[in-house]
């Protein structure tokens, strides 16, 4: 428990460091949110300067950082110039949508990857190996963005699926069953695209890790005691193979916010992806910094989760304290 507290403290320091760095990096990038206004002849230079000073952009870097830090403590995470609202509330809604998509897809991908990878590793049939190798290579070779575009094409051509959004406009008027149907309808494509994008890496890791464990002598020994094949695979081999997979799981939790950026943009998912893209282009810096920080938080949580899970799953790494 003290170990977890220490890890959390480390995480906090890391966040502070990341925030300083992102601040510095956005400073290095040329221009700011109000630069575009300068091009508009109807807006005078004084007005732009007034706006800049109103938002404190004329202050030195450290002063702006400290002001931002103050707003973090108030839970606002700075101010979005484009949306005229606090970054906290803006990001929260978008992050929730993204997490809904990636959480569902990642969960689904893991649920498929573990049995599929284990089965392929245990199979002695040549066609299974060939199909597995070919299939994962193919999926691995297709870039996310192409996958998303293919699904977009599918939606547009067939008309079977909505081309974007998370729910229909008249969603609130549906009854409960209608709402479920509408959600499934909207989730189907993005979740499938996302699952297919994450699946090949996971399933390959499961396969590699299981193949290695399946060669260990303890499985021959267990087979000699009549442990049936399925139990051998999932109860005996899988926990031993889990060690690298748990680290990978931590990583996939850590990238929940960032993994779907491209797919969200292409399939118009109201998540963090389109918002981030917009904010970077417009130099709406606080939104960018907020999104980066959120990703960092998830990364820290993912790693911590992986370590806790490893501790629980693998007796060999439990150190006497």
């Amino acid at each position, binding site marked *: 428990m003290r170990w977890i507290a220490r890890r959390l403290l480390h995480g906090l320091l890391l966040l502070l460091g990341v925030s300083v760095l992102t601040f510095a990096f956005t400073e290095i990038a040329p221009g700011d949110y109000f630069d575009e206004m300068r091009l508009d002849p109807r807006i005078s230079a004084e007005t732009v300067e007034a706006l800049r000073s109103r938002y404190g952009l004329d202050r030195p870097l450290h002063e702006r950082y400290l002001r931002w830090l103050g707003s973090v403590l108030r839970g606002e995470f700075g101010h979005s110039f484009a949306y005229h609202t606090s970054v906290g509330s803006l990001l929260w809604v978008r992050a929730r949508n993204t997490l809904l998509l990636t959480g569902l897809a990642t969960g689904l991908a893991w649920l498929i990857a573990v049995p599929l990878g284990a089965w392929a590793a245990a199979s002695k049939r040549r066609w299974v190996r060939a199909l597995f190798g070919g299939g994962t290579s193919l999926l691995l070779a297709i870039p996310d963005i192409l996958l998303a575009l293919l699904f977009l094409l599918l939606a547009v051509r067939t008309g079977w699926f909505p081309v974007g959004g998370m729910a229909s406009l008249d969603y609130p008027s549906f009854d409960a069953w209608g709402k479920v149907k509408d959600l499934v309808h909207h989730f189907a494509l993005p979740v499938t695209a996302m699952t297919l994008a994450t699946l090949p890496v996971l399933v390959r890791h499961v396969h590699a890790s299981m193949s290695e464990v399946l060669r*260990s*002598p*303890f499985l021959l*020994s267990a087979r*000699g*005691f*009549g*442990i049936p*094949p399925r139990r051998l695979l999932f109860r005996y081999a899988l*926990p031993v193979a889990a060690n690298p997979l748990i680290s990978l799981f931590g990583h996939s939790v850590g990238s929940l916010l960032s993994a779907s950026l491209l797919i969200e943009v292409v399939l118009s998912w109201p998540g963090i992806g389109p918002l981030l893209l917009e904010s970077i282009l417009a130099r709406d810096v606080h939104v960018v910094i907020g999104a980066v920080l959120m990703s960092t938080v998830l990364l820290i949580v993912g790693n911590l989760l992986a370590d806790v899970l490893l501790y629980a799953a693998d007796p060999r790494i439990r150190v006497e304290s």
Partner: protein
Amino acid sequence: MSSHAACGAREGEPEALLQVRDLAVHYVGAGGEEAAVLEEASFDLAVGETLGVLGESGGGKSTLALAVLGLLPPNGRVTAGRVSFHGRDLLRLSRRDLDQVRGDEASMIFQEPGVSLNPCMRAGDQVADVARVHRRWPAKRCREEARAMLELVGFDDSDGVFGAYPHQLSGGQKQRVVIAQALVCRPALLIADEPTASLDATTQAEIVALLRDLRQRLGLAMLFVSHDVALLHSLVDRMIVMYAGQIVESGSRDQVVLKPSHPYTRELLRCVPGGAEKGVGPGRPRLPTILGSPPDPARWPPGCRFEPRCPDRLESCGARRPEPRPAGDAGTVRCLLYDD
């Protein structure tokens, strides 16, 4: 033998628990070439009897042990023969039926106890799991059975061992846990492939004493594979000697060790430390060895397989294959010296 009496099930001669006839195994190499690593292996094992399998590494003794319980590696395959156990041919059973025999009626233990246990499971759970799979008892009953078995294999602190993970146990302790796994369902047959080879001398003696004791208590028949002549002589009732994939000699332990018939057995015994020449220190004669090395399984010599290394070879040995023939009291030998 007293162990027979404990299990004399039917009238007449002692029932053969395990009957192996003309067992042959091929291994397929990486390039697709086949090697006949085991040929014409035949032997009987009576209820409660212990049979030793003696030979150098590469002689086919581990292959023999593995093939009996269908545990050959993926590139190994039985090409001929019959393994009848309790009246059933194990070679013709489905995987599911074989899994019901293994661990329940016959178990196998291996050379390296260090890697024979699941590193992520508590020792006791591994014992209990074998019982669970075969007996389908409730979990509590399985744990009790496992605990009792751990006590039987010599753990005083069975609770402590039950909760320990393999990496917390010593080599000897691990082998005891493996033995507990093997015997928790009280099988009639235990196949042991060099179970003490990786242990230090003291631990080795303890494990052998334990096996001797358990054999007596449980009426266990054993197929004990080893390269250690002295160990086998102290433990087994009968012995078979293997060389280059063939059984070259069989007989009672005293006959094989004290009055060996086959030249290979004689050579093997000559190489045992403490035999003819004692001590290996400076100035002492070196430990004798058998000249040459065992032949390559992909290219067996055409006649007798020991002929190239045999000190007593005859003209005809290089061309004629010797067949097993009776020798001594109920033994066999595969050598042309005994051809008339």
